């Protein structure tokens, strides 16, 4: 069965790019447009095995989303995908439980490798 990945980004261009990269590697893609939407989609797709999440988004940012997930020990791993590369933001995401940080524009092969590694036990 295909592994579900939730892609959270307010840009449809990024969701398309990520969906193309991960979809081509056999993942099933669920999309959300911000952190609040992601919480709803996660509720509707509890079998999600990985979340790829932007940082700067309206309504609920990626870091606020991470914070809301941090109390849930069964939450899937989260990889941040963002234009941000500031060390203190990366450190904060790591403290909140993020498993990775990728700076846009991303290299599709590195994103796929990260997704495969973080979902290896779910495949």
């Amino acid at each position: 069965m295909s592994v579900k990945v939730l892609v959270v980004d307010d840009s449809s261009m990024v969701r398309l790019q990520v969906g193309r990269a991960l979809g081509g590697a056999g993942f099933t893609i669920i999309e959300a447009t911000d952190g609040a939407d992601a919480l709803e989609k996660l509720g509707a797709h509890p079998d999600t095995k990985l979340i790829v999440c932007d940082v700067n988004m309206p309504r609920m940012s990626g870091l606020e989303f991470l914070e809301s997930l941090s109390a849930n020990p069964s939450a899937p791993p989260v990889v941040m995908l963002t234009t941000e590369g500031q060390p203190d933001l990366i450190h904060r995401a790591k403290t909140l439980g993020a498993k990775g940080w990728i700076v846009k524009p991303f290299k599709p092969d590195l994103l796929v490798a990260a997704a495969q590694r973080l979902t290896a036990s779910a495949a």
Partner: protein
Amino acid sequence: MTAAPEELSAVPAEAFATMISQLSEAAVELFGSYGMRIVPIGTRSDGLLGVDLPGGDQTSILGVIGYAGDKVRGALVLLTSSTAVQAWHAAIGGLQGADVCDTLGEFSNMLLGHLKGRLLPAGFPILLSTPTTASAGELRIPRAVRPESVMSFTGDGWRLDVRLDATFEDGFALQDASQRTVAARAGDALLF
């Protein structure tokens, strides 16, 4: 063009000059990462954006994203034609039919993000807003009243106009060398 930098004191003037030089390099790097070669063609003497854009469809796309730091704030404005953004979709591949406004908004976000990463080692940290976009027939953007720089880039049959403005408050200063950091770069993938 760069307007009124002479009104700035030495530290803001140096900071603004750093922003402008890094912005041009960041734009070339950003488009290069998608396999697109762009060439800076200098600044517009009239300070206007969007005049005589090549493309033929006469639909302009505007992207704007704000930033703020300690005693400094401003915005980055990108203006180009829908034909140009459609060319970007084709160059990136697999994005045919994607929304041109959304794509320009994301490029605005990525360009300012690239600039942010380049300003960190210079002791000039900033925070970004989220982008806003618009489309209309033959948009024209007048000069900003603040210190600004307007530059243009050409790609394969298209032009992108970019304006960066800044307002510096009294007391603006670059960070001490001991506080400066280096950002992760585009394409970096870190697993924890």
